[in-house]
Structures are given as C-alpha cells and as structure tokens.
C-alpha cells in the first residue's frame, strides 16, 4: 500500500514542478538555517566532559573584607593562593586540583627552532585523572612531586610532534624559561570545549601545550594569565613578586565528588572552613559559599555567546515562516485535487486511506526538503567556519545533529501536511463530482 501511495505522491509532485520546488525549497531553507545555528549552539553549549561533568564541582568561598559588603553578594569567582593551598591540602574531596594559566618560553636544544612561547597550565597532581585527560605516553606527576616542587612537565601531543617528531619523549629533558624540566608524560589529543576549568583565559579554542606543578611554576616566577580580583590593599602584582597579593583571588580550584551526599558534605566543609578562618581573623564576612557542578558553572558564566542564542531564536522564527508557507502551498495543492480525491472516495477509498496518501506526499516533500536543508546547513556551517570568531572553527555537523536535521524536516513537513490533508479528505465527493 505504501509503495502505491509513494508512486501516487511522486506522480502528483511531478505534475506541478514549480509548486513542488517551492515547497521543497521552503522546507530546505528553513531547515538549513535552523540547523546551522542549532549546530553552533549545540557545539558551544555542549558538555565538555560527558559522563564526568556531574561529578566535578567548583567551590567558591568569600575571603573579601567588609568594604562594599552587601547581603546577597556572590563570592569571588576564583580563590586566593592561601585558601587554594589550604583546600588542596585538606583533601576532603575524592580528587582536587588547584590551577592557574600562564605562558612559558620553550628553549629547544636543537638549533632548528628559535625559542617560542606556549600557553601553559600550572596545576596539581590530580588534574589529569580528575578531568579524564588521556595519556599517549607516560603519566602525570604525584602529590609528592607537587610538594617537592619537582621539575616535571607534561606536554601535549602537538608539542611532542613539533619537538620530538611524535616519539615517546618521556624521560627526556626540556628547557623551559631557563630551567631544565623532565618530561613525565605526553597527552593524547585532548581539547575540552569550552575550556571549562579556566573560563578567564578564553572560553573557546584555547589550549595549553605544557602542564607543570603549580608550586614549581610559582617558585620559578613564570608568567601568569587570567583575571585577578583584589580587595583591601591588594594589587594584581606585588612589588618584588610576579604574583598577586594575598588579598587577591586568582586561582581556580576544582574538586571531584562522586555522589550528591559527598557534595553536600563538601559544602558543609566549606562553611566550616569559612567559620574557622573567621575565628582566625583572616575572613571578615559570614560564610558565603557556593558549590556548582560543571554544567551549572558554565551556565552561571553565560558561556554561550548571546549572539549565538539570538541567532538560534531567529532561525526558529525563520523555520516557522517557512512552515506556514509550506502549509499554505500544500493546502493549495491538495485542494486543487479535490476532483481526483473525490473519484477515489467514490470508488471506495476510505478517508483514512486518502489521509495516508496525502501524508505520504508531504513526507516525500519533507525528505527532499531535509536533503536540501542538509546541503544548506553544510554550506551555512562552512560560512560560519570562515568567520573569524574564536568558536567558528568548532562548527561541524555531528551524526547526532544530522539525525536531528532529518527528524526535524520530516516532522515539520508532516505537521505541515496534516491540516491540508485533513481538509482535502473531508471534501464531500458527491458535491465535488456533481460540480464538474
């Protein structure tokens, strides 16, 4: 039966090529535009660590002074070095890491390269296991290496390719900023998007190539990057030191907690810590803590650019207009065939059969529109990639979005077919036949 309807549909579509082309085009343009922006939105608001993000939390505490204190103010978005080290050493979470971004000069031994700067991350031992960073060779460093200010470094596959032609470089020496480091591990391709663990250095398309123990980097006075939030007499740089004063929050602290109960307990710990620090006189304000998980943290930071959200809404409006347009055209097409449909009804076809036949026809238009929409979406994404914004390079269609494209096209065209089909099969056959 379906094959027969399909045959009828194709015949009918062939009969009025201009109208058919208009309908297919309308669906295709609507689908193409909405898929382009939806894909960008999907890529940007995606989960950087699927399966793991629910266990990662970003603790915030409030060590600020009384100046400018108002009820309901949020704690700083980063931690001070003292609090970071205290929380790190307390080891109250399953895993924890304190970190900061920076840039370091690499001085290769071979004369083939001039010294060059790369983005670096100064962090602590748990970083790699906590964020599921895959190792190609070797491994990270240990907590003991952290405390010992070990000259250990983990590099990315990209840097390994550049310096050692992709060979296993673990155990080899690397000159960084005038000091000799030992390569302990080489990361495989790992580019979480957005760059969730430090949004201050750029949310998208920002990748470090070198990872080293935080305390080693601090000891060597390596350059740091990112925002600093100071209060009291704090300044972004102290005299005689490369780093902000004690009354500045400038590091990121992450913890891994594998159950909601542990998360609740950790929040209690943060409150106790704040109270304890207040008793000691370091904190002035009443405990003001936050413990957001990864996705809540991204949401709180409005990581998806508002332009992208606006474009997605616009594309949906666009799809709506195209859909209304298609409904109108289908209505015109189906009603025009009242005569033919009346003959079928008179010959014994049920309303249900006619309805199925007409929906098959709109389904065919939907599939053709979906295919056209896919081409337009690929073209749209290609145009987006050519735009020089930092997230543009990420705009690719994945299989999931591909399936969504077709589902949306088919759904939209069937939806557009329901009203016209229902109207068309309610035509009274006797009246229609008589009037001819």
């Amino acid at each position: 039966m379906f094959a027969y309807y399909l045959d009828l549909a194709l015949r009918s579509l062939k009969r009025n090529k201009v109208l058919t082309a208009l309908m297919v085009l309308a669906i295709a343009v609507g689908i193409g535009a909405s898929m382009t922006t939806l894909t960008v939105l999907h890529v940007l608001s995606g989960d950087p660590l699927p399966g793991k993000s629910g266990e990662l939390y970003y603790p915030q505490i409030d060590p600020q002074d009384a100046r400018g204190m108002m009820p309901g103010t949020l704690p700083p978005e980063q931690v001070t070095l003292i609090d970071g080290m205290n929380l790190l050493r307390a080891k109250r979470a399953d895993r924890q890491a304190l970190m900061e971004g920076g840039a370091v000069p690499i001085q290769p031994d071979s004369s083939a390269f001039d010294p060059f700067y790369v983005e670096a991350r100064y962090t602590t031992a748990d970083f790699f296991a906590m964020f599921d960073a895959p190792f190609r060779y070797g491994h990270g460093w240990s907590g003991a290496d952290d405390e010992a200010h070990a000259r250990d470094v983990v590099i990315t596959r990209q840097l390994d390719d550049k310096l050692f032609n992709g060979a296993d470089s673990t155990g080899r020496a690397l000159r960084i900023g005038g000091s000799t480091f030992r390569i302990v591990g080489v990361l495989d391709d790992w580019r979480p998007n957005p760059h969730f663990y430090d949004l201050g250095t750029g949310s998208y398309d920002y990748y470090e190539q070198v990872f080293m123990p935080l305390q080693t980097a601090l000891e060597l006075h390596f350059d740091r990057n990112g925002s600093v939030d100071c209060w009291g007499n704090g300044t972004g740089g102290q005299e005689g030191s490369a780093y902000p004063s004690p009354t500045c929050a400038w590091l990121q602290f992450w913890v891994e907690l594998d159950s909601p109960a542990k998360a609740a307990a950790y929040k209690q710990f943060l409150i106790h810590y704040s109270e304890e620090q207040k008793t000691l006189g370091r904190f002035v304000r009443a405990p003001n803590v936050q413990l957001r998980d990864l996705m809540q943290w991204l949401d709180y930071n409005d990581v998806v650019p508002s332009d992208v959200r606006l474009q997605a809404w616009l594309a949906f409006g666009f799809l709506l207009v195209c859909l209304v347009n298609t409904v109108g055209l289908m209505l015109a097409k189906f009603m025009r065939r009242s005569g033919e449909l009346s003959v079928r009804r008179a010959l014994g076809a049920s309303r249900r059969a006619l309805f199925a036949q007409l929906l098959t026809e709109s389904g065919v238009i939907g599939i053709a529109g979906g295919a056209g929409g896919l081409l337009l979406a690929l073209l749209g994404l290609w145009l987006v990639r050519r735009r020089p914004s930092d997230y543009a390079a990420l705009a690719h269609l994945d299989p999931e979005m591909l399936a969504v494209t077709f589902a949306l096209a088919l759904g939209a065209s069937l939806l557009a077919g329901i009203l016209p089909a229902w109207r068309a099969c309610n035509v009274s056959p006797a009246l229609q036949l008589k009037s001819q």
Partner: protein
Amino acid sequence: MTLHPILAALKKHKAGVILITLQIALTLAIVCNAVFIISQRVDRIHRPTGLDEANLFQVNQLWVNAPTGNDQASIDKLDAMQRADVEILRQLPDVESAVAINSLPLSGNNWSGGIRLKPDQKTSTAHASFYFGGWQMVHVLGLQLIAGRDFTATDQRHRGFREKTVPPVVIVSKALADALFPNGDAVGKSIYMNNDVPPSTIIGVVARMQTPTIASWAKDFAFNTILIPARMDANFSGYAVRAKPGRLEAAMREAPRALFAANPMRVIETSGDYEDRTVHSFAEIRAYAYRADRGMAILMGVICVILLCVTGAGIVGLTSFWVGQRRKQIGIRRALGATQRDILRYFQTENLLIAGAGVVLGAILAVGLNLWLMKQFAMDRMSLAYVLVGILVLLLLGQGAVFAPARRASKVSPVEATRSV
C-alpha cells in the same frame, strides 16, 4: 469596485487566507527586528574612537630572556630597551611620530578600575580604563584636547608592570570628566584611582577616547578613559606609530625589520589575526574588534532577504492556485463585460486586503518581539519608523508577487465560461 464580492470569495478560502496573513505577519515581525539589529550593529561598528585613525598602526612585541622586572635595576633596563625601540621607530623615513603605549582603543587589552573622589569613599564614582605611555600620546594618537594642557616631557614617569606607583598628573576623556565632575570643572581636580593614595591631578581633558574593550560588561564606561604619562615596563611592550600620509604600508613593513635589526631577541608576528606580539594597522584592529558585529549584521541581512523571497514565493504560489481554481468564474465575469483591467484589479485588491490584515497583525508581533528581545538580550527599544517602513515594504512585496498570477488571470478568455472543468 465594491469589496463585497472579494470578501465573499475569501470566506471560501479561510484556511489559505489565514495562513498567508500569518506568514506576512511573522515576516514583518522578524524582518523589522532583524533590520533594527543590523542598524544597531552598523552604528556600533562605525562609532569613532576619538583617535585620528588613518595612518596609525600598532606594534606589539615580546622580548625573549628579558630582565624580570621585579627589581628597580631590571625595571630601568626594560625601560631603556623600550625607549630605544621608540627612538628606532621615530627615525624610520616613513614614520611621522611614535610613542610607547600599553594598549589602544578596540585592541581588547583592557586595564580598568574604579575612580574615587575621596580616599575613604566606599564605592567608586565612575569606572575607567587606563592607558600608560609616553607623554606624546595625545599628539601621536591625534586626540583633541578641549580643556587644560597637554603633558610635557617633565611629566614623564615609568613604572614596573607590577609596581604600585601613583602618577601625579593625568589627562581624562570628556565622558569621564563629566561623570566625575558634572559641573565641567574637572581640570585641576584630584582623583583616586583604584585603591591608590595619594591622588592624581587632572591637567587636561580630551574630547573623546574609547576604552580598549567593546565587551558588553564594559559598555557602561565605553568612553571613560585616563591617560597616564608613565611607560609600563615589562617583558613585552606596545607602540603606537603614525606613518607619514600615504606611507602606512611601507612603515608597517619597515618597523619590525628595524626593531629586529637592533635586537633580534624578541617575538613580533607580522601576519595572522590581531593579537599580542603583532604589527597591525588601526583599520585592521577595528575590523578585528567588530568582526562579530559585522558577521551578525550580514547574517541578519541574508535572513531578511531570504525571508522576503520565501513570503513572496508563497503569495505567488497561493494566488496562482486561486487563479487556476477560478478560471471559470473569471471567464463568466469577462463574458458579462468585465475588462482585463477589472480582473487584474480584483486580484490586486484581494491581495491588498490580505496583506493589510497581515501587516496589522505583524506590527503588533514586531513590537512584541522587540519587547521580548529587550528583556532577553538587553536590546534597545525599536523606533516605530522600522515598523512603518516594514509595512510599506511588505505591501509592495505583496503587490509585486501578485502581479504575475493576476495578469495571467486577466488573460483568461471569456470562452472559458462556456467550458466545463
């Protein structure tokens, strides 16, 4: 011609009429708001920075193995390196003037803070961005001094990147002067920058100077700026260079070459996107800063055009169908004496009625959509002129789209009346 027969005929096609009305309404609502967004972005892209932008370019560079900048001796060393660079740039044949400056408007490299009028003030009076550089900044950037005096060589200071020193004198932008001293008597007054004590004295006011960032969080102080006659000494430095008229490209080629010749231990990239460590003309900095706005404006424009085409095509399709369906009736009217012109008029009037209903509904939707966008995306209120122009455009589009099918209808011969089917 009376409207009665047209309305009577439309009643027979309720679903089609409602759909096309809805489509025109949605199109009007979306197009009005899209054009409004475009015009806002275009205004934003073209707003002046206050600089004389032609012939201006920026050199950003980084020294490799530079002194640390953590003690006075190494700060002095860095300052000497910076002064040497400026001198080299000034000597170039195609260069008119050059000055060290840590950042430029639109460059993205922003340092800002709160400004207080009293040292013990709890919240700051205004927020402003700081520019640190040589005392010739006003001249090299082409800023317009409207009150007080310019810096002189004796005002010049230099400071380590992380040092906390207070400049005795500063020049502020008019926007900041007005925010701090609404009576217009800013010159000679003292201000406290960040948590710095003692205060700095305002010696001059420039007409306009934009901050380095155009990010939305900084839009409340977009033109609040302070010029500080102190070179910033760090392992990186930036220079604003004014080329002789028409010699911009030559000067941009010469500059990195001359700097490398004097000291090769540095990083200056001469191509690629605008970033630290690059040489770029101000036009390139502007284009890079507003790239997202330009992209948004183009996208909105494309969507408007396609949307209008889709709606036009929809009208053509639906009217063609109606014409096909009414051939017999048209034939009868023709046989009864209606001229071709009458038939044409009939379809044109019919379309005007439908489009008229569509634009009335669309105007309401457009204002509603604008209100929603104001709430969701902090957009401004759209002027009604956009809606009025949009109404006119859609009515014209409707008439344009209906013309071909209506003409075909007018060509229907009276003989059709005698044929069945």
